[in-house]
């Protein structure tokens, strides 16, 4: 064992580190606990639903599935662009790294912008968060997810600035890969949020 350790020390001083980074494990555990956070608030959604005769309650229309589906596709496609960005970085292709990063940021900005627009401008005519428990849960869950998208965007902006100053490379991608794990998580959560808030009420109302 002593020799093995000596070897590791030698090698790790000369070569890039083997194995997963500490940050990898940290962000995985963060995603676990945040995943539970969303599970809990979706539990509150279904719990309240189960106790309400009509969902959404009287006077609130079923959520629309047109534009919301487009927004969802745009957000989910960023998982692919983030993956492409990481791959370009590992291949040392800085131009493509830049391009995919900007695509990701643009798509995220579209998703978040339309959410904020809906929250601030459109819906007050239809329903306010203080109208009933449905509306309170609706806006709390969507804003909670929106806040996660916003945090993810700040992280990507940080990466953008660092990239602009010449940071990162094929052997120096820990920050980028850690950020992308978090981003995949935020995208993944949206699948559950969209299914619970948009799809299921429509499905059960029609079926």
């Amino acid at each position, binding site marked *: 064992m002593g020799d*093995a350790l*000596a070897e590791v*020390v030698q090698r790790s*001083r000369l070569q890039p580190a083997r194995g997963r980074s*500490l940050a990898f*494990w940290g962000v995985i555990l963060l995603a676990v606990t945040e995943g539970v*956070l969303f599970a809990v608030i979706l539990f509150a959604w279904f719990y*309240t639903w189960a106790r309400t005769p009509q969902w959404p309650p009287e006077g609130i229309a079923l959520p629309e599935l047109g534009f919301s589906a487009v927004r969802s596709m745009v957000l989910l496609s960023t998982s692919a662009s983030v993956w492409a960005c990481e791959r370009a970085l590992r291949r040392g292709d800085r131009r493509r790294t830049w391009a995919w990063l900007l695509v990701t940021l643009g798509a995220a900005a579209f998703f978040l912008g339309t959410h904020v627009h809906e929250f601030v401008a459109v819906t007050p005519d239809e329903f306010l968060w203080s109208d009933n428990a449905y509306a*309170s849960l609706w806006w709390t869950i969507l804003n909670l997810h929106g806040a996660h998208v916003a945090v993810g965007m700040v992280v990507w902006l*940080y990466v953008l600035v660092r990239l602009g100053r010449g940071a990162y490379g094929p052997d120096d991608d820990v920050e980028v890969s850690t950020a992308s794990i978090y981003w995949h998580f935020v995208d993944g959560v949206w699948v559950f949020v969209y299914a619970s808030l948009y799809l299921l009420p429509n499905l059960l109302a029609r079926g």
Partner: protein
Amino acid sequence: MTTTATTTERLAAAWGDQPGILGFLSSVDHKRVGRRYLVTAAVFLFLGGVQALLMRTQLIGPEAGVLSPEQYNELFTMHGTTMMLLFMVPAESAFANYFLPLMIGARDMAFPRLNMFSYWVFLFAGLFMYAGFVTGDVPDGGWFAYSPLVLDEFSPGRDMDFYAIGVIFLGLSTTAGAINFLVTTFKLRAPGMTVSRIPVFVWGIVAIAFMILFAFPSFTVAPLMLELSRALDMRFFDPSAGGDPLLWQHLFWFWGHPIVYIQLLPSTAIVSTIIPVFTRRRLVGYAWVVAAMLATAFISFGLWVHHMFVAGLPQLTTSFFSAVSLVVVVPSGIQFFAWLATIWLGRPRWDSPMLWAMGEMLLFLIGGITGVMVALVPFDSLAHDTHFVVAHFHYLQAGAVVFGLLAGLYYWFPKLTGRRTHRGVARLGFWTTFVGVNLTFMPLHWAGLWGMTRRIATYEPGLGFEVPNLLATIGSYVFGLGLLVVLGDLLWSWRNGPEAGPNPWGAGTLEWATSSPPPDHDFARLPIVRDRYPLWAGRTTPDDSGALALATDDDLALAPPDLHHEVALTAGPEGDPQQVRTMPGPSFAPLLVALVLTLLSIAMLLRSANLVLTACGLLVVSVGAWFWPREGS
């Protein structure tokens, strides 16, 4: 190769903090984090204890006028919140921060800055929750904060906002700590420390860290919903708008039951650590004890409804949760039998840590037996919300948890300070506390069975409550006195106790392999682990720092991350060496971000959108500054 004086000096230079106040504020040393947690948790124990004594004084006789009902409500709310969140969990973090890296042979935690951040957030969140005493808005809706009692209508003012925002803020600290303990244990174990060689205390911390990751989100969502209901008039808990007050209870107890085991498991893990040392024998059934702790962690998520047996839930639901509540007795029993077998087969020595450990066992047993009673729905329907329940859980928390923590404190005190405590005074402190805790809580079982409800500021004469309450109040003073004797003993010994040396108890785990107190770099040479009790297995020869060298000279022939601020990462269940990594050094960023979060909490309290946005902006900048690489690194 021997460790020379220059090597020690260079290690000290690589791992030491700046002197003075700047070093204090920028340090990320896990030992300093641990010490700060310990001192701060002790202060909160004192505050929560004073609140308890005031309440006991009010209850000394029927219709005493010491406290007004409003003050009584404030005190039981703050007492519960303080003991649950600001004393017990942080006190365990204190031991885990200080000793987990040492026990696994690491030089630091996986995320040193996040570690110090956890401490600052804990401190500021605690101060935030106590700020109500200054502004006159002390939370008074109970630490359980049931709706609709705590909504605007019945709790006007800012009192419950201090609670709701404070606990969300504090949850950040607990969650960050849990992630840190897990990654540290996964990746920073000394080479050769396979899963079956991990010290049992570390297993206890691993178990509760997983529980924290799964339980605490519920206690972020619920207070968030509460705060949104209060500040923005949301209707989650309002039946007239399709909401349900019972939703709060589900979310609260989904966290609120596991938190009890988050408090208990480290305390039992400390007992499992201490008993082998003082019986000169390896722990019997190590694998069983570890499995029992993990099973307890798992099962504890299926128990929450037993706090709601009288809330009007379907009978099938309550029966199910009653059954699961009985099942959790099995892993507790396994630990008990492992302890008894170890004592039976060993040669017990009754030093102070062992006394406290025995006290923990006995109090845990009594609290466990009454726990089985209240797990039965028919009995609970009778005892619910009476002082029987108060007696039951105080045997576990004021009893077992406190005694386990004090066992740990007496056990590790020589390592923390380099000194030994006074044998006679330590015994006096133990027996006074032990008599006090039993005298306080044993009579309350009868008061409860005779119908004395809890959370009521007084009681009428002639119902038979006088004698048990008088005894309990006297007991609480004795209990307090006992803890003061302990405090006096520790403070006096800290300065004047005899030198302890690196391993005064002859213990077998790695924290005893380095000097007392450990140097900034913890270990001059990284240990290589070949046994569950490395110091019992190998030759134990002192090296130049006065510490005991481990195993054979061959194992220690190299000191790999020796002269730099580096740790060795290991991989997988076998603990194979994998890479060497430079660790982040001192930084002001954790303190800065914690301060900005405090500002954010205040902004939310003031319900000022502008201030909230400003704080969010500052948050982005300060977190950016945290991660931004320094020049030359």
